[in-house]
């Protein structure tokens, strides 16, 4: 884990911990207050009072049944004079039944156990009742009557007492445990918060790793670039600031790579120029004495041997021809060695196109050895000016080489006509381009990187300096020249130059 990652995780952890720790603290206070309001002694006392009231109600009902039984006894004693006068007993019991709701039935038996009167209330369907019998003895005359009073109250009263008692019981337990119950809530809340912290932390770690790994990759890539490796390229996926930074880094590395390539190439060209200068110097000096010596040998032969004279003349001709070739090479080497640096000034690329167009007829004449090569050359430029900073003469010299090569290639393939060369200049938003393409045989792809090296040539009489000069000139313009395959099948050279202003 990197230090950066640790710092980010620490920041995430601190932020989450402070926020959620604070919430636990506040929740604890709030819960205790809510619990204190909801579960307090007053409510508990009221519940207990409710239970006591229901119990008192039942006890009162029980007392009322005793009173009702006593009342029945007294009424029987007052209303019946003797055991034989039982006819008044029925109406009397009916009256008592109507008067006392708690009484369900009254049964009167004589001393011998015979039932002498009975009244009962019709049962209410669907209502469970708890009943009991209160027995009384009534003295009537000399006899004793046994009165069984069946009293009943709804079962619901007992059930309600039980329910109230259980509610009061639970409430009482809650009240006793109030502190610990609110603590349980806080603990559960705390555990859940802790889980949230862990999840948040893990998510933070995963997300931060995605960021920090990209930052770490940038740091590692920077180290690689610092060590001289300009091939580093980082992937740019997400659309965020890190991605923008990565894109900028990639662009910077690409620029550095191109700059280094440019510098290396120019250094190499400079070395080749130095070599060409020395070579030209070393070869040029002995050429004149060689030529003069050959001429003198041929002209001052004193003998009469015609065959020998003829050999001398032949040798002189060969020497003069080779010396002339060497002089041409020396001239080209010398010109390459003296190739000046580009002197840039603000120009319109279309001026270069015009200059190229003007030189086309001479090129065709030269390549066709006086009869004009049958190659169609089209030169075009954008309708609007293409502002670039360029050395017109240098760039024309380089471009001449490319156009000449293109015409030669097209001519070599189609000497009797049909060869075509297209030269055009155009621009995009930030770049100007000059494109030269032909329908010649093209250049094998494996040679595309080498064609700009000095002294690399595929032509028997070529020096291999033309495209090297082109590249040097283009690089000095801050541009690039590339080779690929033209749509027509031949070669396509594309010179890229920076635009210097809006178009």
């Amino acid at each position, binding site marked *: 884990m990197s230090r950066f990652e640790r710092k980010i995780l620490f920041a995430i952890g601190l932020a989450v911990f402070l926020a959620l720790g604070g919430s636990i603290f506040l929740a604890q206070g709030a819960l205790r207050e809510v619990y204190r309001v909801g579960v307090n002694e007053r409510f508990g006392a009221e519940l207990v009072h409710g*239970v006591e009231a229901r*119990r008192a109600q*039942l*006890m009162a009902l*029980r007392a009322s049944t005793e009173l009702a039984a006593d009342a029945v006894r007294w009424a029987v004693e007052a209303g019946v004079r003797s055991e034989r006068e039982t006819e008044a007993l029925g109406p009397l019991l009916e009256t008592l039944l109507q008067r006392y709701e708690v009484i369900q039935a009254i049964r009167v038996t004589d001393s011998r156990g015979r039932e002498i009167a009975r009244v009962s209330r019709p049962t209410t369907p669907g209502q469970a009742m*708890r009943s*009991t019998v209160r027995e009384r003895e009534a003295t009537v005359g000399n006899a004793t009557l046994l009165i069984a009073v069946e009293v009943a*109250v709804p079962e619901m009263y*007992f059930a309600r*007492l*039980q329910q109230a*008692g*259980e*509610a009061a*019981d*639970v409430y009482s*337990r*809650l009240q006793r*445990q109030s502190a*610990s*119950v609110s603590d*349980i*809530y806080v603990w*559960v*809340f705390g555990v*859940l918060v802790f889980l949230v912290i862990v999840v948040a932390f893990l998510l933070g770690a995963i997300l931060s790793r995605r960021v920090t790994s990209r930052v770490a990759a940038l740091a590692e890539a920077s180290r690689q670039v610092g060590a001289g490796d300009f091939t580093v390229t980082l992937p740019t996926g997400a659309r965020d600031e890190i991605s923008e930074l990565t894109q900028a880094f990639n662009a910077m590395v690409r620029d550095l790579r191109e700059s280094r390539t440019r510098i290396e190439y120019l250094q190499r060209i400079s070395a080749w120029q130095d070599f060409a200068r020395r070579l030209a110097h070393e070869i040029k000096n002995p050429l004149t004495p060689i030529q003069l010596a050959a001429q003198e040998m041929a002209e001052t032969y004193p003998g009469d041997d015609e065959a020998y004279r003829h050999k001398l003349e032949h040798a002189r001709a060969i020497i003069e021809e080779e010396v002339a070739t060497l002089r041409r090479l020396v001239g080209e080497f010398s010109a390459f060695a003296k190739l000046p640096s580009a002197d840039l000034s603000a120009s319109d690329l279309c001026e270069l196109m015009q200059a190229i167009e003007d030189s086309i007829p001479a090129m065709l004449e030269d390549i066709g050895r006086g009869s004009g090569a049958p190659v169609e050359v089209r030169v075009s430029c954008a309708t609007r000016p293409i502002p670039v900073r360029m050395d017109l003469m240098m760039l024309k010299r380089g471009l001449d080489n490319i156009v000449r090569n293109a015409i030669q290639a097209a001519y070599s393939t189609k000497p009797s006509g049909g060869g075509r060369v297209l030269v055009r200049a155009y621009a995009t938003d930030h770049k100007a381009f000059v494109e030269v393409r032909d329908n010649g045989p093209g250049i094998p792809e494996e040679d595309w990187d080498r064609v700009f090296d000095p002294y690399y040539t595929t032509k028997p009489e070529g020096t291999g300096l033309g495209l090297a000069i082109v590249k040097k000139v283009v690089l000095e313009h801050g541009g690039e020249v590339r080779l690929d395959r033209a749509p027509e099948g031949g070669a396509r050279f594309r010179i890229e130059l920076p635009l210097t202003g809006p178009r």
Partner: protein
Amino acid sequence: MRYWISALIWVVAAVAYAQAHLPVREMRVDWDRGSPKVSFSARDLADESVRQELSSGLRKRLQVTVSAHFKGSNRRMAVRQFTCDVTRDLWEDGYVVRIGTGSLSFKTLDQVLDHCLAVKGLFVGEPKSYASREGREIYFYVRAEFNPISKKQCQELIRPSPGDDPVGPITVSIVRRRICQAERTLEFRSDFSRVPE
């Protein structure tokens, strides 16, 4: 592996500690056809407050759980539980005790306590629970509780508020355990005895 061994040692030590600190009470153990019959008294569960509660007219529960364990182990070989729901009858004088589906009536509270807390010849487990364990030392653990609120009743009384609140169900579950536990609990164990050959 080392952690598992240490955890096991801790568990064994904790069990041994708990057993050592559990009060030992005299219990009679008779073996009848391969099953132990235990007799003991847990009447001291009913202190003054319990007696008052039992006389309140509300239904109260006396619950006795007896379990057989190997010495030095928490592993339960057999368990037996019985419950008395005691209600003082406010309509008639006396007490109604419901055991399972049947009910009995008693005139006095002492009769109720004798019936529910003075246990005589209670079978603990089937013969198969003790088969092939002859000669091993065991003990009986007794837990007598006054008025534990049953799980079902507790769930009816303490319910989480409806909704998707994740805290509610968890918290209510813990609160239920705390609130619905017995109002008074008595725990003890027997002396160690051996499963007869």
